[in-house]
């Protein structure tokens, strides 16, 4: 039986929301377990973003960057992974590398929320946001 069919789309969304709930409540181990489980049964990008977000939220920027790089290896034009990678790079005080990725997002046909986030992150870089990070 196809493992992907064991869970409905709605159930996966609910579990993904639960993963983010655990991130917000700083229960990172539970969040990792949820996103890892979702990836095992159905390796979709939103679950990989979720896992990267867990590591970003717990300040494990290297691990988050590793996940973003893996996504970009599989999907080189993925703007969400680029945005997440840029955020992690800013927190690692690697502003110029982050700016390159943000420019790539701004030059793409990404959705409006992603464009706004890219613009705000660029503005944050110009305001020295990385000096407040960490």
């Amino acid at each position, binding site marked *: 039986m196809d493992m992907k069919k064991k869970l409905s789309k709605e159930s996966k969304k609910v579990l993904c929301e639960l993963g983010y709930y655990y991130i917000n409540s700083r229960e990172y181990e539970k969040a990792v377990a949820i996103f890892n489980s979702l990836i095992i049964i159905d390796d979709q990008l939103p679950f990989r973003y*979720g896992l990267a977000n867990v590591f970003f939220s717990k300040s494990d920027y290297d691990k988050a960057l590793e996940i973003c790089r893996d996504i970009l290896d599989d999907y080189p034009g993925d703007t*969400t992974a680029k945005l997440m990678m840029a955020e992690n790079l800013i927190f690692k005080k690697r502003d110029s590398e982050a700016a390159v990725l943000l420019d790539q997002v701004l030059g793409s046909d990404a959705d409006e929320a992603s464009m*706004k986030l890219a613009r*705000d992150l660029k503005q944050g870089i110009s305001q020295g*946001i990385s000096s*407040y990070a960490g």
Partner: protein
Amino acid sequence: MKVSMDSQNILASIQQMQASGSKGADSGKFDSIMEEIQKGDLDEGKIRDFTTNSSGLSNEQYLIMQREMQKQNELFSTLSNIMKNRHQTIQNTIQNIK
């Protein structure tokens, strides 16, 4: 949160004044100015005079502090936008689950 060296000096002098119990302006005047602030009657010039007189800040130090606060306000505004758009981006990814 990181502040510039000038701001750190200003904050240190204010903290020193607080520790020594110095109020700068006399308490009667202080109370009346607080009343005016609460009524919204004070203009920016009066607030500036009051701040420099009561804290012992020079005009230059006051301007430095004001610039620093302006920079921090702008940064908070940017951070707020980042958080809002970050949330929206995450919501969009969840909607894309198949």
